[in-house]
């Protein structure tokens, strides 16, 4: 992982998450803004996937388990699709909150992925 990208990633996912949760609590149904924010998080994750594939090739290998890292990454990649699909099927305000929760969960997963990549507890 690249540190600055991780920071941006966590910041975007957190901001998108808070935005969607707040929008949802203000009874806004999923719209271009909340769906767009979630889509942006997905894009950023795809960028992370690219980095994760490329980084070891230039000598930046994970210090922790690469398999565990990819489990997190794949689950993170699935989450916006899952939440977005559900939001399209049932467009109520809680769908917006669901989008936000998914983004916030991704932010947490990013932090943990960064730990797997860089910090080892042993």
């Amino acid at each position, binding site marked *: 992982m690249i540190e600055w990208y991780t920071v941006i990633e966590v910041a975007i996912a957190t901001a998108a998450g808070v935005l969607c949760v707040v929008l949802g609590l203000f009874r806004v149904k999923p719209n271009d803004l909340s769906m767009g924010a979630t889509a942006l998080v997905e894009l950023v994750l795809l960028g992370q996937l690219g980095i994760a594939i490329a980084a070891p090739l230039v000598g930046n290998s994970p210090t*922790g*388990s690469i*398999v*565990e890292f990819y*489990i997190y990454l794949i*689950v993170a990649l*699935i*989450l916006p699709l*899952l*939440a977005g699909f*559900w939001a399209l099927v*049932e467009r*109520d305000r*809680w*769908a917006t*909150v*669901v989008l936000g*929760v*998914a983004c916030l*969960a991704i932010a*947490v*997963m990013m932090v*943990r992925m960064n*730990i*797997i990549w860089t910090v080892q*507890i*042993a």
Partner: protein
Amino acid sequence: MSRVPVPVTDQASPVVRRSLGVGRVLIIVYAILAIGATSRAVYQLVTIYSSARVPITLSAVSGVVYIVATLALLLRGPAWYRVAWITISFELLGVLVVGTLSLLDPALFAGSAKVSFGTVWSYYGIGYLFIPLVLPVLGMLWLRSRRDRAVDESAGA
């Protein structure tokens, strides 16, 4: 012409779905926890099981229970309603028992250093932002608020 259209409750699931309401948030959190706990447990079962049998087995069990709980919350009918109660009660019991044991005897669930963050339930779910502790309580409150509907459904079915 005066015939009242038959309410197509089964096809008109939006009616039913809308009443999920805030429960949708609960369900997505359950789903995330279910996917997260299960996928990590599968990974640990395959790679480092022998180094920490107790915590990894526990993680796998909790992961499966979270999956069943997620489905039970999502699906309708009195049977699923009961399954939801059972699984959510099991989770609350799990997080309380394992949480307490992990405080009293850290070695029991520590396993090896490779098992980062311990089990879902260690230290009352601290590795998962205490969500495993809070979620069953919220789940029970939500189930209780839906009790009348579950009874109606069983009467209608």
